[in-house]
């Protein structure tokens, strides 16, 4: 589904990704770990199409299509959705309005009709209660005044409504209390199916107890230096990154 091949990316003159390779197949959950500043957020931003990143070489393919030639919204419409670490506030724009615009953009791109209002409300209300969110969140401006944890829930709510093929989540677990962590994890787990892939950036093994990954990768200094199954996360939790660095240097 997603193939990243020897990707080199420069930000403001300095190279951040230095030949990154990653393949994610449908149905899989991948966890991306690694020290601060390694390039994890950069990778997800480049996949989503954010400005300011210069791809100097390499390829990113999504279902065989060259992602790097597509506009941001085209990538989203193709089924890629990025859950932000710090979701931005948009004053005056109702949360429900954004949701509906996003869903309708998808449907129109697929040649379908816009969703009828009652159907949309039903869908949203279901997912909202699944995320244990109050109805008032729909009427509030996008992320405005939301607490850190509420913003994260809202990101997952969008995923539940938009049903992406590839969900990328950047540190979705940061800033969540214990209960919220469970709710968010349940939300993500409910997305799991044979056709969908999930790529999660995280620092903590905790999240992976709730959402058991198929693959765990360690990203260090712009490259994936080690991959393994869920046990790798336990090992990292216990031993830190030092040994991985040594191993990869050897």
């Amino acid at each position, binding site marked *: 589904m997603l193939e990243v091949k020897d990707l080199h990316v420069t930000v403001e003159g300095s190279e951040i990704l230095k030949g990154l390779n990653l393949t994610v197949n449908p149905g899989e959950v991948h966890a991306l770990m690694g020290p601060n500043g390694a390039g994890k957020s950069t990778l997800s931003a480049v996949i*989503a*199409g*954010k*400005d300011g990143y210069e791809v100097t070489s390499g390829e990113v393919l999504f279902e065989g299509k060259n992602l790097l030639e597509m*506009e*941001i*919204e085209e*990538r*989203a*419409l193709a089924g890629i*959705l*990025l859950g*932000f670490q710090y*979701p*931005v506030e*948009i*004053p*005056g*724009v109702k949360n429900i*309005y*954004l949701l509906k*615009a*996003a869903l309708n*953009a*998808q449907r129109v*791109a697929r040649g379908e009709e816009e969703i009828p209002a009652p159907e949309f409300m039903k869908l949203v209300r279901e997912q909202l209660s699944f995320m244990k969110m109050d109805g008032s969140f729909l009427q509030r*401006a*996008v992320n405005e005044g939301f607490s850190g944890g509420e913003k994260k829930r809202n990101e997952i709510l*969008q995923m539940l409504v*938009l049903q992406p093929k590839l969900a990328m989540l950047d540190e979705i677990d940061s800033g969540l209390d214990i209960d919220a962590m469970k709710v968010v994890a349940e939300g993500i787990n409910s997305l799991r199916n044979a056709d969908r892939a999930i790529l999660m950036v995280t620092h903590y093994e905790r999240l992976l107890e709730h959402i058991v990954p198929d693959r765990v990768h360690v990203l260090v200094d712009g490259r994936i230096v080690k991959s393994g199954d869920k046990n790798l996360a336990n090992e990292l939790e216990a031993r830190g990154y030092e040994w991985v660095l040594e191993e990869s240097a050897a």
Partner: protein
Amino acid sequence: MASQEMEELVQREYTQGFVTDIESDTVPPGLDENTIAFISNKKGEPEWMLEWRLEAYRQWLTMTTPSWAHLDYPPIDYQAISYYSAPKKQEDKPQSLDEVDPKLLETYEKLGIPLHERAALAGVAVDAVFDSVSVTTTFKEKLAEAGVIFCSISEAIREYPELVRQYLGSVVPQGDNYFAALNSAVFTDGSFVYVPEGVECPMELSTYFRINAANTGQFERTLIVCDKRAQVSYLEGCTAPQRDENQLHAAVVELVALEDANIKYSTVQNWYPGDEDGKGGIYNFVTKRGDCRGDRSKISWTQVETGSAITWKYPSCMLRGKDSVGEFYSVAVTNGRQQADTGTKMIHIGEGTRSTIISKGIAAGRSDQAYRGLVKVGPRAKNARNFTQCDSLLIGDRCGAHTFPYQEIGNSSATVEHEATTSKIGEDQLFYCQSRGISEEDAVNMIVNGFCKDVFQELPMEFAVEAEALLNVTLEGAVG
């Protein structure tokens, strides 16, 4: 002007020796006392009205154009303007929509203007395309039943001279400013509204205007009087871009609210701003002022300004009555090479008067806009309160927004709060929306409309929807 010349002008016998033929429908360009007499005569005005106009004209001669506004435009040659012309003859107009600028038609389409209104707005020669006569008649009957007077200012001068005489110029005196003086001397169009004591006007005075919008004049004069405990909501303008042969527009609007009266005045203004270089655009110099004359009266201005090459306008409130309330909600959008200098004045005179100012400015392209707000609290205005918030949103980096708040506080018990922000449309906000599959253009519209929400919610419902569409069209291509 030398005082001797001035003297001669004043002395000249204007009722005789017309240079222009009374029977003709148009006066040649130029302005002198004869021109004014001609206009007054054409309109069948009483003697006092002519005197009033001439007084204004004489004051105008002694005045100079305001130079302090944050605007840049070539001097206007007032002798090159024709001050009276009858409606254009059918054969001079475009004969069908095929002859009209396709871009304009495209815009109508985007705004969802009904087909039958498009031709009229574009100035096409049409025989009764729509049933305006009967619609107007229905309105008139309903209003008459309620005792509301709503007619053209010329008709009012003829039919209700006492009312007009009592209130005309009582809010904006003839010599108030350069453009108001010019307007007072030569105005030919405009409306008059009188809502009698205790009457709540049974409808928004709006639909009427959509239909007649194509006939807006160059020097309009509007006078709205709300008697004790009366209420009216008045809508001016039209979301459809209007072209006009006349580059200069200088309107005057006067509102009078007596005890416990409530006037809501909403404007959506979308004059043709000119081409990309600003050529052919309208200069819009407007004096709008409301007088809260009675205790507990309220005047609320809401405006959405998107058109014009140059806009100069400051709807203001004189808060005279005890506990009277003034409000100003404004969205101004400039794109291309437009210039706007807008704002408001809240003059607190009476005790316990309150005012609210919410101004949202959006600048894109190479446009430039200024907000200028004066809050003045007089010595008698005990416990006066004002809250001002002005926010500017910049799209791109070749545009500018400036805020000039002025405060003159003459009573120490007054509370005056001012908040101002300037932000660039956030790349992070755009990325967020786009990464949800929303196109850049839709994302900009969404963010801008969100930014303006506080003002849009003050507009009557149907206007609010149109205003949003209008904003989107105005900002088309502003990003990227």
